[in-house]
């Protein structure tokens, strides 16, 4: 169920509970004190309980209520590692009236009360890391332990360790990290943590779950307070309750409260947006008095676009690059390198030109992780070496369409593991992936820009987008309404892996030689193809990895060589490899004329991820597929298969099927046929163990031995 809530300055005035009002008044007072007295040390206030916050006399550290309030919880929770007794988040956007429009800041106050129930709870929930990105400041941080008798052990400020960390790939250096361990915690104790963060950022969009990531939460609240005059849009999903709304001293205060929330555990392949109540909000407009700032570029993008038209207009303005210098260099490079490529093709039609251009860029241009300023510094070197930063890809293809004078669309798509694309709720955060599309001869074509992380062929749908909805924004006629587009579902016929293993078994020489041929197609082949876009050097690395993986497999066969036989660039993107192995010791003689050949390590299906245990959310396999493995045992003598019955299996469990059979093809050849098929697009929590059963059936086959009798 979805409910929407649009708020303006003249919004309704539902009354807020008294405690809530007090809390916000107190918070406001505190922040005012802080702003008027920049020299004041640490802000202090006292928490009598989760909902009541009152200002206190200043001292060096956070001051708690004199005695801790210990809460009893039901025995039903005692198998959990920890539960959250309460989680309250207060989000306040404020401005300094004396300097309207310039001094805006957001305060995020979080108060958690957690009960520890197992040793694992102590281990996982009491060692805390709080990263603080440079755009925000942690003004208050405190924690304490409450014993069942109400006595408390406080965290000393000296035990909060401050570190600086660099985020990989040069994204941000020197991010503050506060690390501490809550003192004196034993099983049954409660721990309380408060954090007050303040930032100059507006936070114009957020998606809010009231659940805790790891623990069951008895009471959770989220309160948002914005100055009157802000225009916001809020939308609730999955029965998220409507909030209480009130106006307190020029602030509009909206509060959501929910009880008994299951943990929003990061269970593999789940979609939290389908499972739990949540809400999205967007700040659409800031007050008139801020109009001076609003014209400022930063603020312009800080508020969310009110419509897709506005979104498209903004996009036209930035066009992917902030630097005019870079834009000019890219244009020159395009003219020098690609123009010829597009123009002097031998009479190809537009579609061929585009696919050829795409293939050229896909295969020859390498996306690297550098900042825009760093790239700008050495742009000629990078371009000479066919290296671009990811955002330049957009410019390349934008330029291509312009050269071809072809209308094109920017597509906004959303990874299905982050919920559905809500076309009605416009925000620059709607999509997780962007793509380009165009119409040609009544057909719609699309492609994803080659990037560091996704390297899809022309027309290929990324795995996580199969069957999802996207929208298309015209780049040439931005006034035209956005169009909806649905990606095709990736089917089993297209997604397959076929492996043939040939074993030449020489009984007299006691030797086995092995040769494999494996074909993968569609989504199944994506991972393999990722390694291959950058030319032969990467191919060698890929093959070396493949050999290493085979070496570590417990089959006992030592790989000798590998090669890529087929690497198709069109649907279904077939990818085939061949491997050869060193001869290994032969079949084991188990009786006079009886031999056993182990197939251990030869049957290796790509199985669905399964970690066991209790599951609470629906499981969405990434795609349906079929994994067929055939093992041909070719003997140097006439043989008879003796244990065909043992080598037979047929398992069906809704999620998928597993089948195994052994057949004597001719007098010297036996074939083992092992099929692992995934049919389900979703698996309910109750059926989750069936994935384990399916995998177990496939695993069992991996240890079999084929017994043959040599005929006279």
């Amino acid at each position, binding site marked *: 169920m979805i409910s929407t809530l649009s708020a303006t300055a003249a919004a309704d005035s539902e009354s807020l509970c008294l405690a809530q009002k007090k809390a916000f008044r107190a918070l406001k007072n505190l922040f005012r004190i802080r702003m008027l007295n920049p020299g004041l040390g640490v802000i202090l206030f006292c928490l009598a309980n989760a909902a009541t916050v009152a200002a206190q006399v200043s001292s060096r550290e956070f001051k708690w209520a004199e005695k801790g309030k210990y809460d009893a919880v039901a025995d039903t929770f005692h198998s959990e590692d920890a539960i959250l007794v309460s989680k309250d988040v207060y989000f306040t956007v404020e401005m300094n009236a004396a300097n309207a429009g310039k001094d805006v800041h957001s305060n995020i106050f979080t108060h958690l009360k957690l009960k520890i129930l197992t040793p694992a709870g102590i281990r996982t929930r009491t060692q805390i890391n709080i990263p603080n990105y440079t755009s925000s400041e942690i003004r208050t941080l405190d924690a304490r332990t409450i014993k069942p008798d109400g006595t408390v052990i406080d965290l000393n400020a000296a035990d909060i360790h401050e570190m600086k960390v660099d985020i990989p790939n040069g994204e941000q250096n020197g991010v503050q990290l506060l690390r501490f361990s809550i003192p004196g915690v034993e099983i049954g104790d409660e721990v309380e943590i408060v954090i007050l963060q303040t930032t100059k950022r507006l936070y114009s969009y957020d998606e809010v779950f009231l659940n805790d990531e790891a623990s069951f939460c008895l009471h959770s609240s989220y309160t948002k307070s914005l100055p009157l005059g802000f225009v916001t849009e809020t939308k609730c999903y999955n029965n998220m309750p409507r909030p209480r709304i009130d106006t307190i001293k020029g602030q509009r205060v909206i509060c959501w409260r929910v009880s008994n929330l299951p943990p929003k555990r990061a269970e593999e392949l789940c979609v939290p947006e389908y499972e739990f109540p949540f809400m999205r909000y967007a700040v659409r407009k800031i007050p008139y008095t801020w109009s001076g700032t609003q014209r400022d570029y930063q603020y312009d993008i800080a508020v969310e676009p009110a419509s897709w038209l506005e979104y498209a207009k903004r996009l036209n303005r930035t066009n992917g690059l902030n630097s005019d210098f870079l834009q000019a260099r890219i244009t020159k490079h395009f003219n020098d390198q690609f123009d010829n490529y597009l123009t002097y093709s031998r009479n190809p039609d537009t579609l061929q030109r585009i696919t050829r251009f795409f293939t050229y860029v896909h295969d020859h241009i390498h996306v690297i992780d550098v900042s825009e300023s760093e790239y700008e510094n050495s742009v000629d070197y990078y371009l000479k070496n066919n290296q671009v930063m990811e955002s330049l890809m957009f410019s390349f293809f934008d330029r291509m369409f312009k050269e071809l004078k072809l209308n094109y669309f920017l597509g906004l798509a959303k990874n299905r593991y982050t919920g559905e694309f809500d076309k009605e709720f416009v925000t620059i955060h709607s999509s997780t992936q962007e793509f380009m599309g165009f119409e040609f001869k009544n057909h719609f074509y699309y492609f994803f820009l080659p990037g560091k992380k996704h390297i899809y062929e022309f027309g290929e749908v990324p795995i996580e987008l199969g069957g999802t909805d996207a929208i298309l924004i015209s780049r040439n006629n931005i006034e035209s309404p956005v169009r909806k587009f649905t990606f095709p579902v990736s089917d089993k016929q297209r997604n397959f892996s076929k492996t043939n293993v040939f074993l030449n078994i020489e009984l007299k020489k006691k030797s086995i030689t092995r040769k494999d041929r494996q074909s993968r197609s569609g989504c199944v082949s994506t991972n393999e193809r990722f390694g291959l876009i950058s030319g032969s050097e990467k191919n060698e690395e890929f093959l070396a990895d493949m050999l290493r993986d085979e070496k570590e497999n417990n089959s006992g066969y030592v790989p000798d060589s590998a090669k890529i036989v087929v690497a198709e660039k069109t649907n279904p993107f077939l990818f085939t490899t061949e491997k050869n192995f060193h001869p290994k010791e032969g079949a084991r003689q188990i*009786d006079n004329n009886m031999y056993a050949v182990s197939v251990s390590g030869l049957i290796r299906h790509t199985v669905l991820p399964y970690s066991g*245990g209790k599951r609470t959310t629906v499981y969405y396999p990434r795609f349906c597929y079929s994994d067929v493995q055939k093992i041909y045992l070719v003997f140097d003598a006439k043989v008879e298969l003796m244990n065909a019955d043992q080598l037979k299996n047929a398992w069906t469990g809704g999620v998928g099927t597993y089948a195994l059979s052994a057949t004597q093809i001719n007098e010297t050849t036996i074939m083992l046929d092992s099929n692992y098929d995934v049919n389900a697009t979703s698996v309910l929590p109750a059926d989750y163990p069936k994935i384990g059963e399916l995998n177990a059936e496939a695993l*069992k086959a991996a240890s079999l031995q084929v017994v043959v009798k040599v005929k006279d």
Partner: protein
Amino acid sequence: MISKLIYFCSVLAATAAPSTLFAADQSVHYNLHKEVITINYPEAGYTSSVYCRGKFSTLENRETDIVYTELESIGELTARYLNSGRKYKDLKEENVHNTSAMGTSFYNGMNKYVLSWPFKGNPELHFLYAYKLNCKELMTLSTLMINDIQHTDTFEYDVRVPKGMLLYFRIPAYAGSLHTDSTETSEGKIYHFRACPSEKITLPKELEDYESYNYAPRIIRLIVVPLSYRAKAWACLNNWFNGTMNENHGLNPASLQILDAVVKKASDPDTIASRIFNYVKTRTTYIDVENGLGAFRPRDENDVLLKRQGDCKDMANLLCEALKHYGVDAYKAISSTLSHECKMDFPSLASGNHMICVVRQRDKWIFLDATDPVCMYGFPSMHIQGTGIYRIDDKGGEWIAVPKVPLTLNRSSCEMNLVPVEYSLAGSVSYCWHGLSRHDALQLKFSESPADFILSIHKILENTARNTSFSTLTETETDSATCFKGDMKAANKLALFDGKHSVDLNFLPFPHKYPKKANPGTRIITYQTLDNRFSCRISTGKKIKLKPVEPVSFDKDGFRFDFKAEQTNEQTITVSYSYSYNDVLIPAEKTKSYFELNALIEYTLNQMLIYTDAL
């Protein structure tokens, strides 16, 4: 380049390979690492002028780090690179930033300067940098690096020791050329060290594999002492710990109240020691805070007791102070864990990486390592057994050998009673783990919820017993053993052909959990002596005749394996095998035998038994 300070700490950090190995970046290669180290006398501390020269050969990870601790400061940093015109150019200030150097500790207070080298021009970039490192604490001058993951060509050190001070050093068995000499000057003596390593340090692929990587020697250990400690360097180290690093806080009334409740008026020293030890090891969360001298100096024992958190030295100190209060003869001791790259055989701060408490009882030493929550009173922890410790006291201390827990106490047994069910074998199974063989189970029990604990045990058993499923597992625990009973099923292990039955033995558990394959030169730490026994009884339910099976026996380099499969009565086949090794680590020179035996076991446990119905 890493700091000279090898962190003295904790079992958890210590069992991991030196963290710098993992942080190291292999895209950079150093030609030269040179240091001139001047001992400040009579002031404390030392100054090191460092010069490094190297090159990058790829465009990835163009950064170098200068790591330093809270005891150290970096000054006079200059960094230059060779530009495309073959001229040296200064690295811009904006390309140098300061950040924390994260390690395996909860907090280590270490920082680093990160030098970000430009990408311009050729992927190959030559660079050099120099800086001055000042350190306030002379004792931390404990290592000179002579090999590293960047495969530095040459290390050069000049250590200037003034008159009034002495330098002792220990050179490891070293692959490469290592030259040492000294020059007398009017101010004292200059020691010269020049090393060109030929053996490369190879890294484990995963952090989890740290126990099996190539330990190419990488440090010279040293200690600088005043003249008064001539030939008494151990005493100098002892006195440093006993004096500088020993802040006597005294147990306060609140702590004594807790401890009195733990001791429960016991008067026997053994009972007191075991009660306090069990309390500290099970009620203290391991948190290693090791910044500056905090890496060596225990925190206030009252704080550790109240907050229930600390690292090895904190727990050792708490134990020691508590036991002394109740009249038990207790001391702190420095130790080197099995995974540490040095032994506790030279009086350098780098030799040890751990601290424990030792108790003298009836002329015997009892080793109390509270960082291991499953360490049994009366036995050394798995991390320090078979090593040596240095006991700290006010008389110069003493070196004590730590015994290994004998294999008879570590016995692990597995009994399976199975019957044929169609093509499968099914029945009951019981595992019983004694001594250190129960360590993994106890560790899981200590750290996981009951449901997760049983789930984890299932996974462990299913990983060792191949292609077998377990159900209804229940646990029983006694003082000396942890046992599990349940049902098992090994699917598709039986076949009938030509009137003959076959039993595929490839479901039987491999008799140890250590790597079956590894790179040559690798050493493997087992952390326990091994006495693992397995027995599988297959009751066919009818009279049978088993085709005789050759027994298998292996006895080499301390490894012993015995296997036999026989008909024990008219209807029953019994397969029994055992694996023993009476040491806690497998040195590189024994790995050949170890891998040879692994292959033999693999072959043996993959055979098929054949039996026929008896007439």
